[in-house]
């Protein structure tokens, strides 16, 4: 669309206009509701909060918002691919490339990550008997850094500067000579800032799980979700650091003309190594917490303890370890040679073994139990066969010579959607339905939940199953069209129908949340007849939990206490709880990094310096104020 503003001719694509209009409308409605219901105080409260449950809610809220945005991207992609030689709206060439870049980046970094971190934030402290995360201030900072990064990335679209380098950002395409626009900077800085937040949260979770478990809660009695969160946090710590380095080098290549990823000294393959040393563990960062959620849910709703707890923990650890040894299977066609290709084919196959152990242990947990088909359990049950399909195609992909054919086709698209949706997305849905009472005090409607489950699961298989075949028919990834002669029209049309079915299923979620909060029916602390400690505190989880602190003598201690009809033993002699002090500083620190990034992106170096000064001022302010003073009194002896 052409506009003339102050005599300038402006060409604004219609999709950008549509985005502005819809965001402004949503903003007006949301603002109106907040002001009318006098909830501005609540917004302010959440901006300052350092409480783990509230920060968890923020993570979940933004994860879901971005899920809808990235989901719309997916629907646009599928609409463009529905028929051969399609000419849908603006989504050919450049705009299509932007679509799949945003869809991938958002889904991985700004949907899956915050949803999982949100659930960990809420559930892990409650499961292990910690009163909060070890460093509440750092927790808040972690969230706001994620928020600043995601905001920065999302703004690009409204300025018509969306990155178009794919979520993998392969060099040299991502270097300034091939993508000179500011788009790629939004990718680099958006991921850099939010990644920093993720690292902080991972550190926080590690310390919390190691230091703040309830008395008697040894590592052999810890719920599997807590175990998975611990291992995941270690993976984050290593993998996201590598990503940060890769992005940092790319930033230098783009802004200051260094040659890390091209030229005589540099090499584009360096980027691929760095990216996949991050990227492959990332897959397990997404999958392991979901495995943990499913383990807890399957055990709870089969009314049986988990089968083979020891091997379950061992396989989590093993998957995490092997996850760092397989990255080259994304690079079989790069030409690293036969020895490298076979080595990484073998390590990749090896991952199937611990994963297989988990699948069979889940199956045998159900054996002999009494299986209650609640919504969270349905999601867990939907996960098992779906994940196995994704898992076996993973083994097929690991055969490096076969991968020469599979690589970068829709077969791969089918594979990774199968595994990530089955584990992460179904896992997050299961976790949300399961812990919703603990988060809000209300129980989501079971009937609508089941509608959501069935439409989503069926839509998901209809969408992605045909892609195995289109891939083998020769359809590469990241192409915006195909011809009739390719013979893949029907299969693509089926995929598109499935995608819209998944889209429709999400409407049930909106309706469900609306209905649940309209009804306002409070539930007890233990609505599912749970096994672990989070069900001993009231719903929603209060700010001060575990007073007095339970003492743990076995795994699933709460369950066995209920079976024996005796209360959990308790003590008041516990470690001091992490000190919570509301503070707006984390928000300001994150925003100053946002300003630095804006300055660097547009080469407004004065703005970058201003942001940098702000950041250092805030850090100095933080290090000279002692928030513990008004709690412990002014003294030097606790320093």
């Amino acid at each position, binding site marked *: 669309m052409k506009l003339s503003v102050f005599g300038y001719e402006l060409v604004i694509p219609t999709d950008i206009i549509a985005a502005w209009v819809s965001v402004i409308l949503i903003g007006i409605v949301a603002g109106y509701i907040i002001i009318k219901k006098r909830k501005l105080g609540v917004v302010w409260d959440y901006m300052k909060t350092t409480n783990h449950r509230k920060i968890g809610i923020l993570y979940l809220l933004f994860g879901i918002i971005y899920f809808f945005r990235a989901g719309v991207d997916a629907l646009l992609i599928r609409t463009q691919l529905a028929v051969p030689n399609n000419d849908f709206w603006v989504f050919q060439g450049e705009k299509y490339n932007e679509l799949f870049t945003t869809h991938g980046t958002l889904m991985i970094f700004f949907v899956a990550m915050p949803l999982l971190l949100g659930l960990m934030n809420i559930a892990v402290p409650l499961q292990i008997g910690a009163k909060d995360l070890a460093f509440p201030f750092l927790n808040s900072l972690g969230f706001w850094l994620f928020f600043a990064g995601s905001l920065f990335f999302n703004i690009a679209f409204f300025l018509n500067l969306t990155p178009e380098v794919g979520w993998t950002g392969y060099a040299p395409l991502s270097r300034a000579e091939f993508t000179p626009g500011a788009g790629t900077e939004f990718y680099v800085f958006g991921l850099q800032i939010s990644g920093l937040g993720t690292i902080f949260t991972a550190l926080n979770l590690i310390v919390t799980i190691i230091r703040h478990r309830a008395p008697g809660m040894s590592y052999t009695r810890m719920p599997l979700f807590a175990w998975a969160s611990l291992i995941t946090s270690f993976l984050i710590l290593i993998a996201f650091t590598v990503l940060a380095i890769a992005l940092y080098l790319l930033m230098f290549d783009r802004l200051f003309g260094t040659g890390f990823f091209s030229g005589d000294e540099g090499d584009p393959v360096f980027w691929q190594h760095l990216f996949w040393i991050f990227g492959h563990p990332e897959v397990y960062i997404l999958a392991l917490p979901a495995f943990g959620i499913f383990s807890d849910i399957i055990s709870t709703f089969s009314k049986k303890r988990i089968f*083979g707890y020891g091997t379950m923990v061992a396989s989590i650890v093993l998957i995490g370890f092997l996850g760092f040894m397989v990255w080259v299977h994304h690079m079989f066609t790069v030409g690293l040679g036969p020895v490298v290709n076979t080595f990484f084919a073998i390590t990749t196959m090896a991952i199937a*073994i611990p994963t297989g152990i988990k699948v*069979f242990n889940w199956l045998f947990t159900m054996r002999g139990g009494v299986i209650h088909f609640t919504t969270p359990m349905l999601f867990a049950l939907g996960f098992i066969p779906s994940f196995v399909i994704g898992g076996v195609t993973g083994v097929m992909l690991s055969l490096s010579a076969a991968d020469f*054919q599979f690589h*970068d086709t829709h077969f791969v698209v089918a594979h990774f959607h199968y595994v990530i949706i089955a584990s992460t997305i179904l896992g997050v849905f299961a976790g949300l339905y399961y812990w919703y009472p603990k988060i809000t005090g209300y129980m989501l409607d079971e009937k609508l939940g089941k509608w959501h489950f069935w439409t989503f699961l069926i839509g998901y298989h209809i969408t992605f199953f045909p892609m195995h075949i289109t891939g083998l028919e020769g359809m590469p*990834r990241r192409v915006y069209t195909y011809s009739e002669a390719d013979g893949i029209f029907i299969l693509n049309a089926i995929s598109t129908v499935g995608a819209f079915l998944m889209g429709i299923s999400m409407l049930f979620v909106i309706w469900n949340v609306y209905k649940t909060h309209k009804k306002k029916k409070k539930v007890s602390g233990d609505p599912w007849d749970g096994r672990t400690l989070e069900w001993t505190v009231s719903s929603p989880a209060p700010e001060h939990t575990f007073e007095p602190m339970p003492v743990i003598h076995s795994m699933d201690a709460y369950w066995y206490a209920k079976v024996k009809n005796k209360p959990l033993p308790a003590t008041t002699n516990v470690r001091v709880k992490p000190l919570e002090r509301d503070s707006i500083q984390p928000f300001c620190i994150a925003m100053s990094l946002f300003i630095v990034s804006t300055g660097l992106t547009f080469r407004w170096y004065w703005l970058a310096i201003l942001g940098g000064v702000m950041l250092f001022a805030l850090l100095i302010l933080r290090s000279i104020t002692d928030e513990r003073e008004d709690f412990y009194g002014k003294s030097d002896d606790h320093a």
Partner: protein
Amino acid sequence: MKKVFLLSLVLLLTGCNITVLDPKSETASEQAFLITFSFWIMMIVVVTVFILFARFVWKYRYTNSRKHILPKDVKGNIKLEITWIIIPVLLLIILAVPTLAITYDQSPEWTKESEDAGIEIDVTGKQFNWLFRHRNGKEEMDKLVIPEGESIILNLRSEDVIHSFWVPELGGKVDVMPGKELTYEIKHPQRGTYQGKCAEYCGLGHTDMTFQVEVVSTQAYAQYLHQ
């Protein structure tokens, strides 16, 4: 879900008209073999899990008569757990043997002098075209003509970003990198006309970066070179 799976299984059984599984060269045949072989091995796993899953979910579901049952605690079963470690290991070893053999033979490499005799062709990828240069200096854009039954040795190089050379009927992908040359061999292509494409996202015109491959008789190839 299971219906979809069975349906596509049938498709796969009858579906030898799926491009990759209907190979037109020795290289692609080896890859197709590996794909179908691993598919059937993996079906053992899928079927086992699906049967156990269906049986357990049905048999142990909550019913009114089982309302008050308190399931017996089972901590684990070391024999069972060892079973589902050993069997997958065996299946993977079976898979690994042909994989290693074929991968060793086929993996593209940074240029070394090829021991095999064959028809050498230089392939240059650039946004968004392919240039094919034959031994006698003949060049053609976006059209590759090769003789049937020979070994075709491709020396690939990019002028800008990374591309990937792919003709599904004739063989797997090989990346086309800037700054270094990769060698990939297609063994014994069969006569026909195929479509090749760029498989690594390379920017604006990625979708349209296609080319035509004509596999012709040796005489026709000799003629083509001197046209």
